[in-house]
């Protein structure tokens, strides 16, 4: 067997309700049924005119019978989603130190600008003469990304980070095939995001795992030993998922290139080095940038993302369609390739995540070159501050300094009966979203903390004091306190075992109704 590190996924023992009420509500924490349980047939939240009489052109395909959608009036809908929203943690509400996810402030100006009719109401297939401002905006985003990364080209269409990885890796394969080179192996560190090996495998590469050295970095000797004429690429995250900068990166790039391979960089952590280090100066061939991380487009509960990929001169000809060019008649879209380009194809409908480009550009213009540098510096400063203030009570597997996130393992919980998961759940009761747990996989019981530049020193200090108090409590032997946590969240621990053993993935009319509104 391989990869068998699991963890408890159901509550250890059933708990009595802490505060039973007649309604099920607990003060401002409202219970809310499913929309399907609020249904009254015929009710609607819209007033539409009666359709004019026409001779139907649907033929025998006209829908017969009901769909089964519930009917609610607008006040019910607004209340439903308002109550649901109140069951979510959010950056707006508190520190959200999810390592490798970069939960920083989302400026509201960016939301306003993305909703300007001149952007939001543009159809992607309008004549380009009617969308010159939009095409120029895309060109500006490309310019900023190229300057910030020191790379000559950027493919903007990928819909998210993993989609960007696919774009970069396909570009690498296209370039190799173009020179008649059938390499089939990709080197990926054990600490990588799961998307890295998944992407390489999806496009037919064999994944070869690279070990980490004692400092959480790529073992240069091991890398050199694995390089060979069948290696297509290395996929490396830098700063890496242990929160440290790969200090051998320039040498790694040199050796990878000397072996005839390409260097893909997972740019998830670009936010640590913006304005201070350009990936183009490190020898990188392709790197995706998560606009929702580095440039703070909202995470929205899990998307939409946007994952532009910057490309080296060697890979630029293989960039996917479409792209924007500027000519004597203004801006236009290249949708099938032209000139010397050898585009590898298309990755997505239309031209990319325009709504995210508007937000990202607003973020870049607001910060400016000076502000982006200050933001990355503050993010690194905050993470090192947390690392310094927690190192004596928690256990850091690797020495600092770190970059924008700091990594701890569970050695400080040894023999306490408290696991990383328990510790995380106790943070919930203290009003904090837990850090990333059990990732990266190279560290036992990992806790990856990314405070971001959005926190004041007061906020960081309160967080640190809370973490110190929890660590002390765990060491003092109060395991039950942690096993019971969270007590104060909208839900206690959920039975994930049951969810997976007997999947219930949708509501069905036969389900017994729950508490009324």
């Amino acid at each position, binding site marked *: 067997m391989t990869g068998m590190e699991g963890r408890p996924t159901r509550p250890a023992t059933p708990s009595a309700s802490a505060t039973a009420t007649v309604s099920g509500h607990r003060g401002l924490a409202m219970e809310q049924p499913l929309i399907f349980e609020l249904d009254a047939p015929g009710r609607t939240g819209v007033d539409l005119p009666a359709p004019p009489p026409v001779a139907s052109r649907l033929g025998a395909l006209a829908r017969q019978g009901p769909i089964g959608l519930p*009917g609610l009036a607008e006040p019910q809908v607004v209340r439903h989603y308002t109550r649901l929203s109140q069951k979510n943690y959010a950056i707006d509400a508190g520190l959200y130190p999810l390592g490798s996810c970069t939960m920083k402030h989302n400026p509201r100006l960016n939301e306003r600008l993305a909703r300007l009719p001149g952007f939001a109401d543009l159809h992607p297939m309008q*004549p380009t003469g009617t969308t010159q401002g939009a095409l120029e905006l895309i060109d500006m985003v490309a310019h900023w990304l190229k300057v910030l990364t020191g790379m000559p080209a950027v493919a903007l269409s990928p*819909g998210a980070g993993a989609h960007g990885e696919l774009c970069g890796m396909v570009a690498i394969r296209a370039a190799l095939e173009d020179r008649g080179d059938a390499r089939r192996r990709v080197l990926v560190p054990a600490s990588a995001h799961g998307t890295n090996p998944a992407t390489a495998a999806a496009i037919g590469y064999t994944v070869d795992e690279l070990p980490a050295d004692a400092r959480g970095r790529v073992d240069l000797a091991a890398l050199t030993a694995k390089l060979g004429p069948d290696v297509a690429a290395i996929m490396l995250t830098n700063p890496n998922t242990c929160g440290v900068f790969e200090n051998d990166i320039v040498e790694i790039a040199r050796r990878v290139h000397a072996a005839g391979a390409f260097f893909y960089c997972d740019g998830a952590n670009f936010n640590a080095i913006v304005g201070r280090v350009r990936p183009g100066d490190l020898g990188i061939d392709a790197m995706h940038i998560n606009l929702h991380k580095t440039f703070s487009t909202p995470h929205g*509960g899990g998307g939409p993302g946007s994952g532009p990929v910057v490309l080296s001169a060697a890979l630029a000809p293989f960039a996917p369609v479409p792209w924007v060019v500027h000519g004597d008649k203004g801006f236009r879209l290249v949708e099938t390739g032209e000139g010397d380009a050898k585009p590898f194809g298309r990755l997505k409908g239309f031209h990319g995540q325009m709504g995210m480009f508007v937000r990202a550009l607003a973020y870049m213009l*607001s910060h400016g070159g000076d502000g982006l540098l200050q933001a990355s510096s503050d993010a690194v400063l905050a993470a090192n501050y947390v690392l310094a203030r927690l190192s004596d009570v928690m256990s850091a597997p690797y020495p600092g300094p770190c970059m924008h996130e700091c990594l701890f393992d569970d050695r400080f919980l040894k023999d306490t009966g408290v696991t990383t998961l328990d510790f995380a759940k106790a943070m919930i009761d203290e009003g904090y979203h837990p850090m990333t747990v059990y990732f990266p996989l190279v560290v036992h019981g990992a806790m990856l903390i990314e405070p971001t530049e959005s926190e004041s020193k007061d906020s960081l200090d309160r967080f640190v004091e809370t973490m110190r108090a929890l660590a002390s409590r765990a060491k003092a032997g109060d395991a039950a306190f942690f096993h019971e946590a969270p007590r104060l969240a909208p839900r206690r621990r959920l039975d994930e075992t049951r969810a997976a053993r007997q999947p219930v993935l949708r509501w069905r009319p036969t389900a017994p109704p729950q508490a009324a509104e």
Partner: protein
Amino acid sequence: MRYLPLTEVDRRGMLAAIGVPSMDNLYQDVPESARLKRPLALPDHQGELAVERALSELAARNLPASAVPSFLGAGAYRHHVPAAVDHLIQRGEFLTSYTPYQPEISQGTLQYLFEFQTQVALLTGMEVANASMYDGATACVEAVMMAIRLTKRKKAVLSGGLHPHYRDVAATLARYTGFELDMAAPDPTGAEDLATRIDGETACVVVQYPAVFGHIRDLTGLAQACHAKGALLIVAVTEIVSLGAIRAPGDMGADIVAAEGQALGNGLNFGGPYLGLFATREKFVRQMPGRLCGQTVDAEGRRGFVLTLSTREQHIRREKATSNICTNSGLCALAFTIHLSLLGEAGLRQLAALNHAAAVTLAERLARVPGVSLVSDQFFNEFTLRLPKPAAAVVDALAERRILGGVPARRLWPERPELGHLLLVAATEVNTPTEMAAFATALEEVLR
């Protein structure tokens, strides 16, 4: 700098607590040769007003589809989105939360995803749906790859009524992930016979419903032909509102429905972000890509929701995952589900009827323009016209008259000169009789 709370005093204090003299010490691992020693050639920070001016100026140089009579479809549709939708999705608890990895404090996101999955399953006539994908085109190719995993076959047949972007995304993945495509020629009239292309190597047939040219065809026979040969039928839907008026793909035997959900709750946004919908049969659920939300109970026995069946996904399965996909389109899914909740059964049916009525009215009016003929017979809210002149030039001339008069087929099939006179036209509930009359008049002028 308004987004950065740390003061210079804070920064000095924090460096002291860390025990280093300057920020440079924290970047000590960066090789000397890679350190930027100068500021980048970028402007300095700006206030809200200045940024708003700069971007508003760019926005003003576009002609929004909302400002003029506009009849574009071809995979992206303009509908009226109720005001409550945008208000609710901008609540910070939705907008600024992450993937619901900690379910105890993410029940809001998880419950709406569960409701969303149910709505998508109902609408498509399928048993289960996932928590969304990037867009319709990527959902479609994920469906093809899922069919390849399920059937252990390597060939997909693509209808000539499939949106060319969907086809091209599939072609890119086919080439680099190693499967074959049998692509039918563009099919403006819906006359193609795909059943004859199915053989023992066929993993799936992909057909769009309504087709990119607008026509709708009963897929029951095609589903039977697929199943007789052990292949799966994948139905792509680019205008999800259509399913309020026409039979659900699931009722006709679809095995996977891959759809674009933009038309409900989401704006045109020049092509993104959009919302991939993905629904299938329960028995295929372990081969499904993307996130799934499931119902369970908490320690007190109260109903709650979690992300489930995650072992399919890259963060656990790594190189053996069903897909490399990580992100979904959470906020777009929220907009979709809120819009659909506001509509309800009655509202969606009526909205679809309005769309159909608008398209029929417009098609009949435009077909009376001299030299213009209607190519589509049965359709929902989108149809194809044959013009007496190249459609691209006609559309440009209409745009000069401030009418966005559809998508020339050549824009989507530049390699097909024989489609040069075809124009794809859509009408929805937002198009008034006045707009339609203006379109007809302008088209007459342009063609004269």
